[in-house]
Structures are given as C-alpha cells and as structure tokens.
C-alpha cells in the first residue's frame, strides 16, 4: 500500500482552498505552509497564460528527509505516508536541507520541523486529507497507488503525469497531471521581488536580489523564463553562521590532532610539547566549541542527546556525533598521556586512532552535506578531500600560531609552515576545481557563479582567495617571520570560504 496524491492541473483553478483548509485542519501558524499554490505566467499580451502548481511534501518513497533526520522524527510509514513526530525532533533543520521540494518548516509553537503528513490523523479514522475534501474541483486525488482499481492508480496509469525533480531520485508520490513544467521547476523561473497580490518577506527579497545578477548571466534572458506571480513565503537558508563556524572550528580541532599524529608518524620532532600537549588541547577546545555550535544551532537544544538516544543510524548527523565523541576521546587520551614519561609509546599507539578519528571528524561532514539532497551545490565529490585539506590547513595554521606563542622548536614550526603551504595550494586547487569545472546542473552552476561572479565575489576573491590563500602563501614562502600573520590570514580566509560555501549552497530556490 502506498498512499500518494495526484494533482490534476487540468482542473485546478488556483483558488487556495487547499492552502487554507490545511491551515485550519492542522493549525499551521502564519508564515508556514504545508501546501501552497504557486502561480507562474508565460507569454506576452494577449497570448499570456497563468499556470498554477499545488506544491507540498511528495511523500517520497526514498525520502531524503527521513534519511538525514537524526532522531527518527521523520519516518516513512508502511502505507507510504512520510509522517513526523514533533516530540522527537531536535530542530536541526537538516530535513529542510535534505528535501528538494521546500516541504518542511519549523513550527514556531514547538520549534520543531513539520510538513504535510497526509493528514495522518484523519487517515486513522478513514478520512481523506483536508485539502482533498475542500477542493472545489476535485483536483487533488488521494489514494493507494498500489491498488490498480483506485482512482489515483488509474489516473497515474492513463494520464500523462510528471513529478517534481525526478532526477533527485527521491521517488516522489505526488503526481501532476496537466501541470506546467516551469511551475514545478524553479530553474525555469525568473526572479521576482513581489507578487501580484502578495509581498515577499524581506529575507526572500534580499536573497532574490543577491542571486539575480548571477542568475541573469547563468540562465540567459528573462523572457525565456516563466514569471512567478504568486508563491507562499519560505524560510530562507535554514543554516546560518553557526553551521559555517562549526565547519571551521571542526577543521581546526581535527587538524590540530592530525598534525600531532603526523608529527609522530614522520618522527619530525620526537616529542615537542606543541604536539604532545598543545595540539590535543587545541583539538579539545575547538571540539568543545564545535559541539556548542552544533547544540546551539538546534531549535530544541535541550534535546541534543536525542541524537545519541533516539538515533537514526542512516543519518550522518548521528554518525558525526559518534565520530566527534570518539575523536574527543582520542584527543583527551593524547593530552592525558602527553606529559607522561611514556608519551612516545602512548602516542605511537594512539597515532592511527588519531589519524583515523581526525580525518573522520574532518571529513564526515561531506557525507552529511551529501545527505542534504536538496542542495545540489553541496553534492560535490571533491567535498571529502576538500574538507580533509581544510583540516590540514587549519591544523597547521592553528599550531603555527600556538607554537610561535609557546616557543616551539624551529623544526616543528618549519614543518607546520611547509604543511600549511602545501595545504593552501591543495585548497586552491580543490576550490577552483569545485567552482570552475563543468557543473552537474544549472543550480550548481548558479551557486558557483554566485560565489565567483555574484553577490559573494568580493568575499570570495578578496577574502577567501587573496587574504586566505595568496597572501599567506607569499608570507610563508617569501617572508620569514611572517608565519603567524600568514596563519591568521589563512584561517580567516578558510572561514570566509566555508561561510560563503554554506550560504551559496542554500541560496538557490527549491520551489
């Protein structure tokens, strides 16, 4: 049994009854929508037409929100409905990044994620969803796609149907009959700062204007695109500065311990305090900051332990938590044994665990961002190596600063300097590879262009590239004595890049 919807746009008149009936049935707060009607227009007078699209959760058979949700607050029921349980939700917003359809929002009453759940409470008593029964045109058809004689199954079999973003591989169960493809595909829509009878929230307008200049160049002339003339508001960019800061602090934490392990592996200094105690301390301090940022970014921070106690083992948020914990244990052991007479032996024993957990801590985010299926820009195969290089870069830079301050050995500092230079070059190569190569699709290309030529170009070229790569390289390679300056700038540049990367990835409209 698989419940799904058919939206029959041969019948839909764009009246918004479904929107309001849903709000009434589910007491959806202002500013949030479980279902909404988008209008787009095409053509020039008098050959103009307005098309409606009823948009909502697709109850995907392969639902990315279910996969990424760390606490099984989102789940697919055996009848195909993707339901949610606000009492398990920690408000991490990862589902909003995973969903390619803009279906989720954070309920301001509970600070937990919510979306269309097929009126599961009505299903329980044998009733159709509220949007279905209100529709004047019977344009929304609910039912079991697996029952061959059901109305919905017959429609799907006999009519020409389409789904939103089939390329995402989510296997959506909302089928459209007679819809205009451009209404279902944001890449085919021109930017709009207001609508024919509604405003857009200021945050949306800012984002549209940010993306617009890059979009115009990427997507060609606006006349080829549909013109959105009505849409419901959506939260823009659920992940903000705390998430980009977390990537950065995690790079430092992971990198610092990796540096100590590499020192041991290559027998570089044979027991410099920089690596025996300072490095694990840096790792632990920045790990603590990382964890704090993660918890504080939750809409329900007091529920952070649900990640460990109500785990969804398929979520990289859960794996990430365990990896960070394991990394913390290794770093703590490294530090605890750092002053013991047997430090050398201990650290040789901890070497591989440190490298393993360090790189895991640095790199797991690639899989987490990979599970954020809604953000195509983040789906880069280069992300994993890039995060590891970022950890090397951040670890080396951090230890250079600390080491200089504590008077570490020349060889230690030289080693770190060399590693920093190498990782800066690798960082530059990966960064340009990510942004410069042919992109997977137009949305990825647009996000990349937003960074290189759009609203983020100053921060990217001036901050990430000039301040963060070019100047540090010059400082390290050509200006002896400028190692600390170079390290500070490299760290600053890395932060700017990660911030821009996180923001740009969320700047492309999902619906």
């Amino acid at each position, binding site marked *: *049994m698989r419940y799904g919807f058919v939206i029959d746009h*041969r*019948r839909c*008149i*764009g*009246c*918004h*009854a479904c*929107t*309001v*009936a849903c709000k*009434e049935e*589910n*007491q959806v*707060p*202002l*500013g949030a929508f479980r279902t909404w009607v988008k209008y787009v*227009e095409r053509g020039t*007078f008098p050959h*103009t037409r*307005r*098309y*409606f699209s009823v948009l909502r959760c697709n109850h995907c058979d392969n639902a990315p929100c279910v*996969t990424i949700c760390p606490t*099984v*607050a989102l*789940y*697919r*029921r*055996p*009848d195909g409905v993707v*339901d949610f*349980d606000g009492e398990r939700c920690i408000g991490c917003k990862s589902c909003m990044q995973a969903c390619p359809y803009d279906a989720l929002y954070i309920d*301001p*009453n509970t600070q937990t994620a919510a979306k269309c759940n097929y009126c*599961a*409470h*009505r*299903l*329980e*008593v*044998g*009733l*159709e969803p*509220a949007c279905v*029964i*209100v529709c*004047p045109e019977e344009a929304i058809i*609910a*039912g079991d796609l697996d029952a061959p004689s*059901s109305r919905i199954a017959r429609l799907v079999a006999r009519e020409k149907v389409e789904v939103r973003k089939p390329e995402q591989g989510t296997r959506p169960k909302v089928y459209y009959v007679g819809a205009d493809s451009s209404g279902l595909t944001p890449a085919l829509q021109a930017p709009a700062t*207001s609508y*024919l*009878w*509604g*405003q857009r*929230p200021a945050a949306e307008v800012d984002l549209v204007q940010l993306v617009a200049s890059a979009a115009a160049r990427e997507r060609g002339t606006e006349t080829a695109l549909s013109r959105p003339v009505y849409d*419901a508001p959506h939260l823009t960019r659920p992940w903000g500065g705390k998430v980009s800061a977390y990537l950065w602090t995690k790079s430092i934490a992971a990198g610092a311990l990796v540096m100590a392990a590499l020192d041991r592996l290559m027998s570089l200094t044979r027991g410099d305090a920089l690596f025996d105690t300072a490095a694990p301390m840096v790792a632990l301090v920045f790990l603590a900051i990382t964890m704090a940022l993660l918890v504080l970014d939750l809409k329900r921070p007091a529920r952070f332990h649900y990640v460990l106690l109500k785990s*969804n083992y*398929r979520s990289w948020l859960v794996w990430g938590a365990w990896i960070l914990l394991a990394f913390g244990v290794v770093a703590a052991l490294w530090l605890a044994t750092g002053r013991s007479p047997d430090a050398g032996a201990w650290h040789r024993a901890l070497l591989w665990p440190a490298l393993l957990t360090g790189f895991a801590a640095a790199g797991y985010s690639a899989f987490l961002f990979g599970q954020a299926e809604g953000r195509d820009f983040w789906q880069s195969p280069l992300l994993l190596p890039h995060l590891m290089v970022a950890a090397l870069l951040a670890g080396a830079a951090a230890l250079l600063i600390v080491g200089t301050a504590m008077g570490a050995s020349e060889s230690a500092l030289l080693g770190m300097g060399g590693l920093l230079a190498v990782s800066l070059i690798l960082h530059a190569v990966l960064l340009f590879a990510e942004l410069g190569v042919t992109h997977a699709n137009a949305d990825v290309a647009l996000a990349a262009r937003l960074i290189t030529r759009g609203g983020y170009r100053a921060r990217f070229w001036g901050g990430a590239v000039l301040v963060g790569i070019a100047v540090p390289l010059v400082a390290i390679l050509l200006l002896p004595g400028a190692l600390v300056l170079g390290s500070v700038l490299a760290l600053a540049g890395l932060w700017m890049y990660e911030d821009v990367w996180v923001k740009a990835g969320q700047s492309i409209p999902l619906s």
Partner: protein
Amino acid sequence: MTTPPLPEPLHPVAREMSERDGGLAAYPPVARWDDWEDYDAVAWPRKVKRRYSLIPTICFNCEAACGLLAYVDHETLAIKKFEGNPLHPGSRGRNCAKGPATLNQVQDPERILYPLRRVGKRGEGQWERVTWDAVLDDIAGRIRRALVEGRQKEIMYHLGRPGHELVYLQRVFHAWGIDGHNSHTNVCSASARAGYAFWHGMDRPSPDHANARFILLLSSHLETGHYFNPHAQRIIEAKMRGARVAVIDSRLSNTASMADFWLSPWPGTEAAILLAMARVLVTERLYDRGFVEKWVNWDEYLREERPDLPVTFDAFHTALEELYAAYTPEFAERESGVPAATIVEVARAIGGAGGALATHIWRNTAAGNLGGWQVARALELLVVLMGAVSTPGGTAPSAWNKAIPAPPMMPPPGKVWSELLMPKEYPLAFFEMSFLLPHFLREGRGKLAMYFTRVYNPVWTNPDGMSWIEMLTDEAKVERHACLTPVWSETAWFADYVLPMGHASERHDLMSQETHAARWIGFRQPVLRVALERRGRTFDLTWQAHEAAGLGQVWEEDEFWIELSWRIDPDGALGIRKYFESPYRPGEKLRIEEQYRWIFENSVPGLPEAARAENLTPLAYMRKYGAFLVEDHVYRTHEQPETGGVVVDGVARRGFPTPSRKLEFFSKTLKDWKWPEHAVPAYVRSHVHWSLIDRARNEMVLLPTFRLPTLIHTRSGNAKWLYEISHTNPLWLHPEDARRLGVATGDLLKVATAIGHFVDKVWVTESIRPGVVACSHHLGRWRLAETAGGERWSTALVDLTHEAGGRWRMRQLHGVRPFESADPDSARVWWDDAGVHQNLTFPVQPDPVSGQHCWHQKVTVARAGAEDRYGDIVVDTEKSFEVYRQWLALARPAPGPGNLRRPLWLPRAFKPDASAYRLP
C-alpha cells in the same frame, strides 16, 4: 502488492501500524454527526481523542451560500473547524478558501463582543459598552416616533448582502410600513440586472454550466463572484467533458487563464464584440429559428419599429440582419482590439453549441461602463438566439432555480415611496440609488432619523467615501446611525452604536441561490446554540447561548428585528406586533425556531415528507442536514402550462414576467420611458472609450473592479489565513505603458481622477491590455486609531485630515504590523502592506438607465513626486458634487406613462404598494 521492506529505522507508530483496507471517505457518516470522534492533529502521532458535534450551517463570506459543517468540541464548546456540508446541493461538500477561513472570523481575538455606544462627537472614536436593552429601547423609541409622526421615509436600513433575509426583512419593513430597504446593488450588479430584466423580467442569469457545450463568461467565475464555488465546480466539470470556455475580460483573470479563448477588449467595447457574434449567428443562420419565433416578441418589434415590413418571421430575420449590419467582426475589432477572426471563431463555436450555451455576466464590464447594461443585454441576445434559455446546458433566468419559501403572515406593502432610495431621475434603476445618498442629503432631499448599516461599509466600499464621511458626521442629516456588524469597519467608526451580530455560524438564515438547474434551500444555524440545545440546555435568544459558550453578547439579526418590532409596538396599537407573534402560541412573542419551524412545515414542498421518512420533524431534519433539495433538473420552466399565460403552440404557458410575457428583444418599456434608442440590444460607447483617452497625455482607463480569489469585500479583514495570501493591490500596467512612464514593478505612480488622486505601486504585467491600468478593489483597508476601529491583520493606520472646504487628505502612518493578542499568530504577521484605498478618489458616475455606478475611471497617470507616499489619498468633495451633477444631468426622469415613478412590472426589492408608484 507487498510493501517493500523499509530500509530506515521505524518510528514506534509506524512499527505498530496495520494496513487500512478499502478506500477513504470524504466525510464522517451522517449517522455519527452527533458524536464524532477523531484525533487531535497537533498532538499527532500521539493519539489524543476529541469528540465533536457536527452541525451544518451556511457560509457567510459571499452570496453563494455554500454549506459548512461546524465541528463543535464536546469538551471546550469551541468550534474546531469548518468543513463543507456534503449534503448541500449547491456546494456538494466543497468550499473555496473563504469557507475554512470562517474559523478566523469566529476566533478573531479582537472581535466586537458587546454593544458599543459612542462617547463624544461622531467619528471621534470614543466608545462605551452599553446594554442591549438600552440600545433596543433607544432605537425602538426613535422608530416609533418617526412612524407615529408620519416620517416613514426617515428610517433606512442599508445592507450589503441580503441572501434569503430578503423575504425576512421584507416582512419586517412592510410590517413597519416603511420603504427603507437600501442595498449595495448599484455599486455592484445594477447594470447586469437591468440587462437581464429587460429581456426576461428576472434580474439574474442561472447558467447550467455542468451540461454546457460552450461557456461564455464576462465574469470571473473560476475565482470570484456569484456563485464562485458552485459555478467553478460545474464549469470545470463541463470543461473536463469537452465543453469549451471563452472569457471576455480586459485583464487576465485566473478564469481567463483556464479558458480556451481569452478575449481582452478595450474596456466597455464588449457589446460590440457580442453583437458582432450575434451578427454571425444571424447571417450564417446558426441560430435557433424555432425558439426565437415562439418565444421572442419579434412581432412587437416589427409593429413598433418596422411598420414598413410585414409581420412575418422572415421579415424579422431581414430586420435583424439590417439592424446589426454595421457590427461586422472588423468593426468589433476596431472598437475592441480583439481580432476579428477570434470573434468569428468564438461565434461559430457558440453556434455549434446549440441550446447548451451557458453564459454569465455580473459585474465586470457591466459594472464598469456607461451603458454597461446593454452588454448584459447583448450577451443574453446570444443565449436567446441559440434557444439556450432554461435548457440543459443553457442559461435560465435566476428565479426559476431558486426556492423562496413563504414565511408565516406576510404583511401588505407600505404605501410609501422613498425618494432618497428611488428618486424620480432614475425610474428604471436596479435598484436603490444608494451611492448617491450623501449628495441627495446635501441637496436637501431629506434626512434620516434612523440609519442602519448592516456589515455594509459604504465609507470604504462606495465611490467618493469622503462624502460619506461628511454625511455621517453631520448629525442633522443622519440623526442616529447604528452599525450591525461582527467586525470593525471604516463605516462603524462613524456610527452611534456598533452592535455585534453573528458570523456564519452564529445566526439563522434561510438561503437559496440559483447555483445550477435545481432549487434548494440551505439553513444557516447558530451552531453553538444548537450544540448546547442538543445537550438539554434551552435559551430564549441566541445571544444567551453565545454568552454561555463564552462568546460575549453576540446577537443574531432575526431576533434583533423581532425584539425591536415588539418594542416599537409594545401594545400592538400600530398593527406591527401581530406579525411578530408566534404562529403556535397566539399573542406570544415569536421565537426564532418557531419562524423556521413554520416555514419548514408549511412552505417547502417535499420537506415534511422527507422528514417523516426519517422520523424527524421538518425543523429537526433541517437542523440535522442543513439543506434540502426541493427540485432537481429544472428546465424549460417557461413552457409549463399556466392558465391565463401566454399562448405558444396553442397552449397557454407560463412564459416570462415581462409585459409581453415573452423574451423582449424589443423593450417597449425603454421606448416609453424615454430611451427609444436603447429599445433593442445595442452598443453604447462607454465614458472611457479609447477615443476619449489621450495616451500621449498619460491618460489611461482605470479598471478598479476586480476581485481576488481569497477575499470578500470588507468582511474578511479578520481572516488571517486569507490576508496572508493576499494583501496588496498594485496597479497592473502593461510593459509598453511602463516604458512610456519610465517605471518598473514596485515604483510609485500617482493616479489622478476627476476629484483627486491616489498613490500606488506598479505591477508590470503581460496580463493587461496596453492603455489600461487595473487595480483590485479588495485591498486598502484603514483605521484611524492604533488599537481600535479596524482589523489589525488587514488595515493600515492612517492620518485623515479635513483641509479647507471639501479637501481631504489621507496618509498612511504605518502598514500592517505584528501585534500582541490572545492569538500567538498576531505576533507573526509577516506582511506590512495593506494596499491602497482607490475608491475614495472616485466620483459617483450613475448610469442614467440602470442606475449602476460606472466604476471605470478616466485617469491621468504620472510618476509619483518627492512629496508623494505610498497609499496617499487626496480628494475634493466639492468636485465630487460637481461630477454628481454632471452625471445627474444625463438622467431622463419620471414620470413615465400613467404618471408613474417606475414601470409597475419592473422588479424592485420590497415593492411598495402600487398606489405609491403614482406621482402626486
């Protein structure tokens, strides 16, 4: 099919789930409506059970009277939600967005719950709570004095939405012996009504969309209007079965967008298009000759207008060809801008539809243009030519698809004629010249001792609202003003009493609308009272039930009129009281349920039998089901045999309620009442015809009439879910005009009318004809005080200044803002736009025949200057009085034949006694 194994970990609820067999139902079975149990949506997936009574009522957000089903929580007595009533024949369980939004109106944290009386001067905004007793005694005393002193004409009741209360109120006002019913009709549908009434004596169309083969709409019935939801259902039904749809509308409405043909004419040229289509039907002989020969007064036309021709139908065919010879498709294209080929294509499609031609016009161009009533007449000409009158898939006159059960004891009409409502200048108007009232009072035509406004909001809705403010603040002209309303409004601010009346679920009404080829009644009920009474509580009056359920002292109007009538005539000496006595308990005051009990027992054919079959009384049946289908498949009513009727095919038949008892292609009435040039369907060049607009001087025509799918005039201002969707009314401007004016979307334009200007922002769009600027009339609500006088979900706070003479200036101080209330959503209001109130800047423009306010405005459009702000309004009421005098001069006043004020046969709401029709 087996469910594929799920790879992800299961939520406990999902683990425990068993599969549900069989299909899903749309509604709980009726047998369980008394005690329905389901699960709380917010607590889900925790299973928290709730128990409800499901009580049917009728939506009150537009005139369609769709069914609602209220879920009343057994524990909290709160209404949890409104769904559709699946047993309602018109709406069939489905609703538009405004149906469920009723919940917002009921739960509005700022609604008025107790009667208020003004303190200080009228319009100053100071209020005190008073008792209903004090209100009723004061008003009854004033009315009694007026009646006793022969000042019957000084009592006026002005409403927006009558519904079936029409008969109810007719009882009240005829019992009082007054001619005091005033409506909104002349700012709405007067021209459409006139056009239809001159054809068939009934003033509305009732298209049978569901069975049509071709649907021609000059209204936007897939998104708004009478009767949006029921009609939209049936239009799409027909479309899915292969019917084609054409929409004539200068603006791309959602309806036009769904149509097979969108014809966007220059506003006001629609009749030229329609007559060109008629010409195609005639010259290509696509019309139904048999029907026209039998049912049209062609012989009268030939005798009166073409004495040169023999009285034969062949001669009439020739006469028709000659009459419309000038209306070539090319002429229509020159007038309208719509390609001739399209006009011919649509005409031939109409010709192919036979009698299954469903058409509708209600406001749109009829309400916009001088002579708009001839557009309705030209549209109906197509229906008549195709013989599509009252056929399956055709277009019937309204009254045949309506059930109007008689109440107990109908008083005879009064022998009074109010010149303030129906002045001599407009003998053919449909109906009361309501929007001219301020000018009539200014000219000294009378005064009002007691003026009621019911929900209706003339200060905001009518053109020239500043003149209304001037009138309402003049206590010599309007001595007492009581506003009967569930919500604050711009007009309520200028009242002496603000009296809270119930929303859709808080009152009784009997409704019937011509939604399709059937006749039905729907029963609006105060659902809290019904729920409490089902559990053994009893109440004398509905407001007591509301108070018991925690809803303050909200009255229902039915009871208000009974109570008021008893207090006007406490001893029965004026002959009023007897009409408000119980038919079951002689001499006792009528209880509201007795009124409806009597109607259901005596006036609804088939209802007592249907009730008996279920072991119910007729009243209990209606309380349970909320609707009753009196007759289905109503067709060809005019053919029914009727003694003394018109003889067709050798049988006396019912015919049409016109002087000829036939469809009047030729209206002798119009000829006799001084409009001989309009005696047949004709094309009148509008007051905004393109030849009068000089675009080089930035003149344009403003189309200010269109509605939005989610809003209803001024009664939905507290519906947060609707305003969240629609809250701004920018000026639609074609890119060509935008280039000429040098503006882009979001820029401000200053739009100057004959009496002032307003400032609004631009929406550049390909959905409007070049040269036309369009603005929805739904937005632009305002209030004068921060925390009172307007719904904060939808109003801007404004500063209103009366400068020298008639000069008024309004400026927005701030738009919509989040606010604290019992509803946490009020702090989450994310929009700040309230729109712009354009109607204030419109002078009155009464059509000299129909009396319709012609809404379209010739405007001068320019970029806003440095001193202009969004939402600015400037008006000079001296100028509006001048414009009024100019339009008044177009009128051709009574008397007509027989020294009459108005043709006796012509419809009028609450017709006075025939003796009152004669001028002294």
